C-alpha cells in the first residue's frame, strides 16, 4: 500500500475533494437501494464509465482484481451450491435463485469497489486537508486522517525491513503453522515497540504546533467549491433519497 501519489489529471483531479467522496459514498448506498437484479449490475457499469470519464480508469482494472475472488466465491456458494430450482448451463447445474443472488451481490461489490478506488486514485491529501479546513472541521480530525495516510507506507516498509533483518539473523518462518505462528513475535514486536517509542517525539512536535487545541484553521489555498460541485453533491443526495423512498415503498427486499 502507498499513499495516493500525485492525483491523476482529469475531472476527478479538478473536482472539489468532497464531491469525489460524496460520489463514492452515494454509489455505496445506492448499491443496496437500487432494484435487483439489474440495478446493481447497471450501477457497476455506470461506476466504470464514471471513473473512466473522470480520468481514474485504472480503478476499473484494480476493482476487477479486488472483486475477482469475491465473485468466484459468490458463484460457488450461491450459483453452484445454492438451493431451489436449478437450470443447466452447459455441463453445470446452477441454482436459478442462487445465480441471480450471486449476480446482484457481484454487481454491488463491483460498483462500490470501483467507485471507492476511483476516489482513492483521485485523492490528494493536501487538497483534502485544505477543503475540510475551509469547511471548519477540527484540525485534529483531519490531522488523524492525513497522519495515518503518511504513516501507513512507512510502517509497511518497516515491516518489510523487519522481515529481512530477522531472516538474515536466521529466523525460520517456513514449515508448519506453529513454527510460522511463533515467528510473529520476533517480527511484530520491534514494530510495536518502535512505534510506542516514537509517540513522545511526535506528541512534542504536535504540542509545539498547538494541533491538539483544535479550533478553526484558515487554509491558505482552499480548493474551489464550484456551482457544478455543489449541484453534483445535492443531486446525489436527492438520488439517494429517491432510491430510499422507492425501496421502502415498492421494490422487493
Amino acid at each position, binding site marked *: 500500500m502507498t499513499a495516493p501519489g500525485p492525483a491523476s489529471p482529469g475531472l476527478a483531479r479538478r473536482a472539489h475533494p468532497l464531491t469525489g467522496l460524496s460520489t463514492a459514498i452515494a454509489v455505496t448506498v445506492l448499491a443496496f437501494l437500487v432494484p435487483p437484479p439489474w440495478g446493481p449490475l447497471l450501477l457497476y457499469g455506470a461506476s466504470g464509465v464514471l471513473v473512466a470519464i473522470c480520468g481514474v480508469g485504472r480503478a476499473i482494472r484494480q476493482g476487477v482484481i479486488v472483486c475477482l475472488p469475491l465473485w468466484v466465491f459468490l458463484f460457488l456458494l450461491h450459483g453452484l451450491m445454492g438451493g431451489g430450482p436449478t437450470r443447466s448451463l452447459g455441463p453445470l447445474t446452477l441454482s436459478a435463485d442462487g445465480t441471480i443472488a450471486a449476480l446482484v451481490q457481484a454487481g454491488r461489490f463491483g460498483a462500490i469497489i470501483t*467507485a471507492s478506488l476511483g476516489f482513492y486514485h483521485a485523492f490528494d491529501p493536501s487538497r483534502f486537508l485544505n477543503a475540510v479546513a475551509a469547511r471548519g472541521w477540527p484540525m485534529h480530525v483531519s490531522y488523524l486522517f492525513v497522519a495515518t495516510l503518511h504513516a*501507513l507506507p512507512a510502517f509497511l516498509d518497516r515491516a518489510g525491513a523487519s522481515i529481512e533483518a530477522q531472516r538474515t539473523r536466521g529466523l525460520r518462518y517456513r514449515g508448519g503453522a506453529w513454527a510460522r505462528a511463533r515467528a510473529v513475535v520476533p517480527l511484530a514486536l520491534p514494530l510495536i515497540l518502535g512505534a510506542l517509542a516514537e509517540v513522545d517525539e511526535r506528541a512534542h512536535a504536535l504540542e509545539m504546533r498547538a494541533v491538539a487545541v483544535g479550533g478553526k484553521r484558515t487554509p491558505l489555498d482552499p480548493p474551489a467549491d464550484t456551482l457544478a460541485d455543489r449541484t453534483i453533491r445535492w443531486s446525489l443526495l436527492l438520488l439517494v433519497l429517491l432510491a430510499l423512498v422507492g425501496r421502502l415503498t415498492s421494490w422487493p427486499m
Partner: protein
Amino acid sequence: MSSRLLALIPLAVAINVAIGRIVAELSLPVYLDAVGTILVSALAGLGAGIATGLISQVFAAFVSGYVWLAFAPIQVLIALLAYFAARQGGFRNFGASIVWGCLLGVAGGALSAFISYLAFKGVTAGGVTFLTTVLVGAGIDLPWAVALSSLVTDVIDKALTFALVGVALRSLPVRMISRYPLALRALGR
C-alpha cells in the same frame, strides 16, 4: 484530544496494517489486524481504542472499497472488550490474554457472522469464505456455515492477537508504560 493520543492513534492504525503484511508473509490463516486497536484500548482507554478501530476500518475501506465499512461495529466491540480486559488485568500473563482473546473471538465472530450473512451473503475475506464454502459443500446450511466459520477464525485470531499485545505490554520498559495508568492495571501491577 491530547497530543499523545493524536500521536498514538495513527501509529496504531499503521501497526494494524503492517502486522497484516507480516501475517501475509508468514502465510498464516489469521489476520491479526486489530493489534493496534487492542493495544491502544489497553494503553489509553475506550475512546482512543474506538477511534483507532474506526479509523483502521475507514482506511481499509478507503483502499479496498467502502463496502467494508459494514464491519465498523466489530471495531467498536473489539475496543470495548479490550478495554474491559485491561481493567480486569487481562494482559497480566499469557493464560489470561488467551482467555480474554477467546471471549472477544466468540463475541466478534457472532457479530461478524451476522454482518457477513446479512450484508454480504456470506462472502467476505478469502480464508473465512473458503471455510464457509467447505462447510456448505459438506451439507451445512449457509447461515450456520457462516456462523461456524466466523466463530472458528475469530476465536483463533483474537486469542493470538491478545497474546501478542500481552507480550508487547509486558516487554515495555517501566519508564514508558508508567505514562499509561490503564496499562499498569492491564498487567495487574
